[in-house]
């Protein structure tokens, strides 16, 4: 499959701590995106990083992309209880950008 694994599968931290989630993929990509899903709801787009970018920031979110290692990380700084959700990375393949493939996700629990 195009998509690899996200790790960790589940992460539990205290409020105020930083949370780091990783994503690996297998094929060359155009872009990589991170999404958030609250329990039982649709996904919401967080941030997009293009294949020629190495780092991107949006508020408390920081995303890195290492195309040589085919991996990305999402860092949430100063976490809040409201950050509790599942986080997914998604990629498109260089040769078939119409397809959007998601990883298995990381379930984040932020304890107040």
């Amino acid at each position, binding site marked *: 499959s195009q998509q690899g694994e*996200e790790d960790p599968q589940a992460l539990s931290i205290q409020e105020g701590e930083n949370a780091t989630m990783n994503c690996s993929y297998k094929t060359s990509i*155009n872009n990589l995106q991170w999404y958030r899903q609250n329990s039982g709801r649709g996904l919401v787009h967080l941030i*997009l990083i293009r294949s020629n970018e190495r780092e991107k920031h949006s508020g408390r979110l920081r995303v890195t992309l290492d195309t040589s290692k085919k991996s990305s990380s999402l860092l949430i700084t100063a976490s809040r209880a409201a950050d509790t959700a599942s986080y*997914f990375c*998604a990629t498109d393949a260089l040769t078939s*950008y*119409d*397809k*959007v493939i998601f*990883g298995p996700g990381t379930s984040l629990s932020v304890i107040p």
Partner: protein
Amino acid sequence: SQTIHQWPATLVQPVGSPLSLECTVEGTSNPNLYWYRQAAGRGLQLLFYSVGIGQISSEVPQNLSASRPQDRQFILSSKKLLLSDSGFYLCAWRHSGEGLTPGWTEAFFGQGTRLTVV
């Protein structure tokens, strides 16, 4: 602004019954459309995607089919549901790649349909 509608929110169907889930998008034209399924506590599995009316790409051979009778309408169907069809079904759209470099933008999701086959 663009919106996506997906219904129903929940559905309980007996084994062997037919299925029809509908997804419509407003405020844009010629979107790419997607159907995903999510098992409990798991990631999203791409089932079908469409880049235009009548154009359907199937990712996983199974008991389901998809159709796109209109530009902004995407329908997921089954003639006879199986227990294994239970799950959370999500519809999504994004702008097509035309005019964009290098290719694509974020996907926008509906709120999902939780299907339980009993």
